[in-house]
């Protein structure tokens, strides 16, 4: 009611900072911070249960396991930002990986070409999804749920009698089985930190030159320090084992590219607009159906890419590729890490963070050799909790203007 409500400007008092963090937490906007706390809690818990959990070998395995899920999740984030959902990403990843494997092993197609064809198939499936949703106004969950059944069927058909295809030794399997020597790992970390810092300072200087308000330097340095520490810790731990995996770099590069797309380009802005208020976006002259179709294509293409990485990790494709809880993991990860199920709110980075959270829980339970019954129940409970938190904080956010 009171329109003179204090908008939190950049006041730097410690009390104000704490208050800001509290507000952000209660409105579900602290995202990364909350998730990091969650990861810390999960890791501490499992480390106490089994001291091999935080060993370099296990953490490297965690990264390798979750690379596929994280990749699929990036696509899921894009679709969630529109306020839509794609329940076929698991099936699409399995089908595209199967097609790739059949092409390489049975048809002797160049592995690189086979991967490109698999990604192309993903894009076509996304085009189909987007077309059905925009042209016939069918809810996305119906189109993609029905579709997923069909894609699984097609996968079984493609795989044929044996049901399993071993990939052997080639470009595809190298994706998750290549590790950089320690020095290159460090070089990557230094480069990443330097670029993050450089772009942040450059952007800041640019704003200052334009006479605009800039945030406190302290906040920026704190952020960079946290990110930098994470990079250093990652490379340090990976170097204790086999070294920085190529696939981790690939997934980071993908996340970076799509973070750029969503946050820095006009197309990304329009995605947020469609997810926030489609009618307003339409009236602003945005071709909302084009945006939707494009995003479904990107989502399915990333699902196919995830399928390729999963096949690379498994060194094979089989009838259960892309099945089981992969779909749920890929959707739950970003949601746990702060991307809204209701559209218009979220970041690509939540795909990576979410994959780490979900993967840690699954990995830890495996280490403890828990029964499947327990694993299913725990995973289900985590998902429900995450969605509930999302729903509650969303309510708080929306009432923010009225308080």
């Amino acid at each position: 009611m009171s329109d003179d409500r204090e908008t939190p400007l950049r006041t730097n008092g410690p009390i104000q900072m704490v208050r800001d963090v509290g507000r952000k937490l209660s409105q579900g906007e602290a995202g990364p911070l909350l998730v990091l706390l969650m990861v810390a809690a999960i890791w501490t818990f499992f480390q106490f249960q089994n001291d091999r959990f935080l060993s370099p070998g296990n953490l490297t395995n965690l990264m390798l396991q979750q690379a596929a899920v994280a990749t699929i999740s990036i696509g899921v984030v894009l679709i969630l930002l529109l306020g839509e959902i794609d329940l076929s990403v698991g099936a699409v990843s399995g089908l595209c990986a199967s097609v790739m494997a059949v092409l390489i092993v049975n048809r002797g197609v160049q592995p690189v070409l086979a991967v490109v064809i698999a990604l192309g198939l993903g894009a076509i499936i996304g085009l189909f999804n987007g077309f059905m949703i925009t042209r016939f106004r069918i809810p996305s969950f119906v189109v993609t749920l029905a579709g997923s059944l069909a894609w699984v069927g097609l996968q079984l058909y493609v795989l044929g009698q044996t049901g399993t295809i071993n990939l052997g030794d080639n470009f595809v399997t190298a994706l998750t089985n290549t590790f950089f020597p320690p020095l290159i790992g460090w070089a990557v970390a230094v480069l990443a930190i330097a670029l993050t810092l450089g772009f942040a300072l450059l952007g800041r200087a640019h704003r200052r030159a334009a006479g605009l308000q800039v945030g406190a330097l302290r906040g920026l340095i704190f952020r960079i320090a946290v990110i930098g520490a994470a990079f250093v810790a990652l490379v340090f731990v990976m170097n204790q084992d086999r070294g920085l995996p190529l696939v981790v770099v690939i997934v980071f590069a993908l996340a970076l590219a799509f973070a750029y797309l969503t946050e820095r380009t006009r197309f990304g802005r329009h995605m947020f607009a469609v997810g926030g208020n489609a009618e307003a976006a339409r009236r602003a002259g945005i071709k909302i159906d084009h945006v939707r179709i494009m995003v479904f294509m990107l989502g399915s293409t990333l699902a196919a890419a995830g399928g390729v990485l999963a096949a690379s990790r498994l060194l094979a494709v089989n009838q259960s590729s892309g099945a089981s809880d992969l779909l749920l993991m890929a959707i739950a990860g970003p949601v746990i890490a702060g991307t809204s199920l209701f559209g218009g709110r979220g970041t690509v980075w939540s795909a990576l963070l979410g994959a780490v959270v979900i993967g840690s829980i699954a990995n830890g339970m495996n280490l403890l050799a828990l029964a499947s019954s327990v694993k299913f129940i725990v995973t289900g409970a985590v998902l429900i909790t995450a969605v509930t938190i999302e729903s509650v904080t969303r309510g708080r956010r929306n009432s923010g203007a009225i308080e």
Partner: protein
Amino acid sequence: MSATTPTAPALLTLKSVSKAFGANQALTSVDFEVDAGEVVALVGDNGAGKSTLVKAIAGVQLCDEGAFYFRGEMVKISSPQDATALGIATVYQDLALCDNLDVVANLYLGRELFTRGPSRAAYLIDETAMEQSALELLDSLAVTTIRNVREHVGMLSGGQRQAVAIARSLLGEPSVVLLDEPTAALGVSQTEQVLELIHTLRQRGLGVVVISHNLENVFAVADRIIVLRLGRRAATFDVRGVSREDVVSAITGAEFGVGAGLSKESA
């Protein structure tokens, strides 16, 4: 009735506009005009034809008969794009804002600026330039209530949201602005801010059309009041030298002022 037949052509003039929905005659041969630097309030009871008239001007809904003149020249408005091209901007009651985007993003939605130079190839949005001109725009409108243009619109008050919506409509450099119930559901001080903003629009030489149910606001902001009743133009008043009772009786159709007991201000 048409006391104001201007010698110079008005900015926007409508002549004998009619519109029927089936058997229901929504507008019957209505004339309408708004001049530059003038605030015209369009009042009338529910179903009087206010919305239909505004939708016709905005190009959202075509009328069956009637002629449109813009700066004295006959024009055709058959789509929202036509209206926009002529320089007619409409702010609907629902404001059409994206709550999940900040003020700058909402102002420039659908017409984002790109950076120049080599980074143009990367489709990078020029946030700095957009924020600068957003600040300038809000400044020029004397909107002081929005302190942080990077705040999400969902966190703003009703008055601030209205200000963002009006500011956005001005980005296309219009000459006529249609405001649909700009003060509905606003508190006292926020209403004050919006009325202040409408004054600023008039000072900038824009023709402003305000639809409102609230006669108090109408008297506070309008130069002329056009009353619609049952799809016809029932009366036109200069806001100076007319009493609220006269306007109310024109709206309700009572021929004579019904007396001192009249205190209803909003339908």
